[in-house]
């Protein structure tokens, strides 16, 4: 689960990580008072207006504006709120800005990169640090990997003081600021561990002209499987930032992602679902979605899946590809029949059922006298659905 920058900063503040003064705004009517409050607390006229969306690269898309006066701050609020922000990390359509974060403007001396995430290969958290901050860290990693420092942490022992010192040295922060940086790193690790975060990224971490170390931006990602023990973090979820079809699918225990093609897919298992998309493409079609019905598929979930797929007007044909293991094919067949009876189906449906109770399923479908195109193997199913989508 992702959260906004302003929420991440609220969380970091609780863990004693220094952040700049800021007030979040979800309605333009609150903008003037938010600006005034930030000005008062920071004892300065200048503020920064930052769009709050779940994607990085906001500055490049025009979503972050330095505003030296109150008038300009208000003008920027008006401009950014409600704009559709397109950044390298959003979809091509962009993301509508519904929240702003008004912050104090900081006099920056140096910018750094700091993140904690999981290294899957070694089963250990790793702190990633670079003196090249505020820029695309992927570019740094590619062009000059020697500028990226990695400190793995053995979870049996936790983070050691000397490891923190290694990171501070790699950042190149010295003197009194080094002690601040050490505290910040220690607290960030504590926050990362205690909240079941999967990524805690500060880019940029800055050293101000006054020698203060603080987090100027923050991205946090949390382990969905652990949200049950973090009610406070689960409450930070912003459904406005998510695709409504994907949210609805999740309520039915379906894993769904909208894509741009014309062949709808209903598959069990993430790997087979991706493979089904791949073979549709190999046959000259384009998948309209990724949809994994999961291990507990029943007639209800199949019906819900059909509804979500059919909502997309681009869909010209649907492929149901089920290899029953835990999922029983007869249950899927009953779900398909229920859905066809209830929904106004105007596109051809190719069905391929294999595995547990596949024979029973075939009988159920044959008896039901429904208009389906049957397929036995994966290659045949993909060819048939691509043909059908092309109107052949």
């Amino acid at each position, binding site marked *: 689960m992702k959260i906004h920058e302003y929420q991440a900063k609220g969380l970091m503040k609780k863990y004693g990580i220094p952040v700049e003064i800021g007030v979040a705004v979800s309605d333009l009517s609150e903008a003037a008072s938010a600006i005034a409050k930030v000005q008062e607390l920071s004892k300065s006229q200048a503020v920064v207006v930052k769009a709050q969306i779940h994607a990085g690269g906001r500055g490049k898309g025009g979503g972050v504006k330095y505003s030296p006066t109150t008038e300009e701050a208000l003008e920027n609020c008006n401009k950014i709120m409600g704009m559709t922000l397109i950044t390298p990390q959003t979809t091509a359509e962009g993301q509508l800005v519904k929240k702003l974060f008004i912050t104090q403007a900081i006099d920056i001396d140096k910018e750094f990169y700091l993140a904690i995430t999981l290294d899957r290969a070694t089963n250990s958290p790793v702190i990633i640090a670079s003196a090249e901050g505020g820029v695309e860290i992927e570019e740094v990693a590619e062009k000059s990997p020697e500028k990226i420092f990695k400190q793995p942490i053995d979870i049996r022992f936790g983070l050691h003081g000397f490891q923190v010192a290694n990171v501070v040295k790699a950042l190149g922060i010295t003197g009194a600021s080094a002690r601040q940086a050490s505290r910040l790193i220690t607290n960030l690790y504590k926050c990362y561990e205690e909240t079941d975060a999967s990524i805690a990224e500060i880019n940029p971490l800055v050293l101000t002209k006054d020698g203060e170390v603080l987090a100027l931006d923050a991205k946090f990602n949390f382990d969905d499987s652990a949200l049950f023990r973090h009610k406070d973090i689960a409450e930070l979820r912003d459904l406005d930032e998510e695709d409504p079809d994907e949210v609805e699918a999740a309520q039915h225990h379906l894993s769904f992602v909208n894509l741009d093609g014309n062949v709808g897919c209903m598959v069990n298992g993430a790997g087979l679902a991706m493979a089904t998309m791949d073979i549709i493409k190999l046959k000259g079609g384009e998948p309209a979605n990724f949809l994994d019905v999961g291990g507990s598929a029943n007639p209800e979930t199949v019906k819900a899946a059909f509804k979500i797929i059919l909502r997309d007007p681009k869909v010209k044909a649907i492929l149901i590809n089920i*290899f029953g293991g835990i999922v029983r094919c007869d249950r899927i067949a009953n779900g398909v029949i229920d859905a066809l009876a209830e929904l106004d189906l105007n596109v051809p449906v190719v069905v391929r059922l294999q595995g547990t109770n596949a024979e029973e399923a075939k009988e159920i479908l044959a008896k039901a006298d429904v208009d389906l195109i049957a397929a036995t193997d994966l290659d045949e199913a993909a060819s048939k659905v691509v043909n059908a989508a092309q109107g052949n």
Partner: protein
Amino acid sequence: MSILINKDSRIIVQGITGKEGGFHAQQCYDYGKNIVGGVTPGKGGSTVLEAKVPVFDTCKEAVDTLGANVSLIFVPPAFAADAVKEAAAAGIALIVCITEHIPVRDMQNAAAFVKECGARLIGPNCPGLLTPGEAKVGIMPAHVVKPGNVGIISKSGTLTYEAAHQLCLVGLGQSTCCGIGGDPIIGTNMVELLDLFQADPDTDAIVMIGEIGGSMEIEAAYHIRDNITKPVVSFIAGATAPAGRRMGHAGAIVSGADESAAAKMAILKKCGVVVSENPAGIGEAVKTILG
């Protein structure tokens, strides 16, 4: 022969009195007759599977009484990591965890603990293991496999079934089918299983199914080039999956590698692996090699 499990495995099921655990324990029992016991705290002293299989409160009791050496876990996500640790502490050598949605922190800790105990973990979030004709420790449908000489390693459950099914259609059976799981933290990786199949005299070819994300397939590719003499056929799922739908960059930085399907397939090919770009072509590709 086979790897990891065979007809002599003495298997217990943790969570055997649950709905899923009970159903699949029955299936595994019907297949290999080597489910010897179950564990559910508070249900010790009872029996399941038509009174043929005793239930214990703890793994330790099951190991002491039955000499169990394999445990199959169907415990809910909030308690599954602890079940893994209990099995390892009780001296179980091979632990297969089917449960999905286990918090990553819990698995990190459990995986480290299992290693300390000298045990092996398969999974979590996997379909488990199946040695055709001998033993089933997981949820793979038994009727899509048959005994033979091809080993399967797969991140994905249903693609494991698909691969086994395709092999059967071209007349090839399997030595052992292994679903390793798709979670960020898993107990046994592709490289370890490649070594086990390489050492197994009855495995003549290996099917390795991966997907986008992570760097395990890339490490496996170089390991195959340097250490594996048996032919390997691979498919990588996700060539059409949309890129860049993630937050932050830290994940990609860790491995410093390109985690796309195209990049993985290119490296596998370079390392001498036969890559089937069509997921329906896995069986044929193996048949072409084995003749």
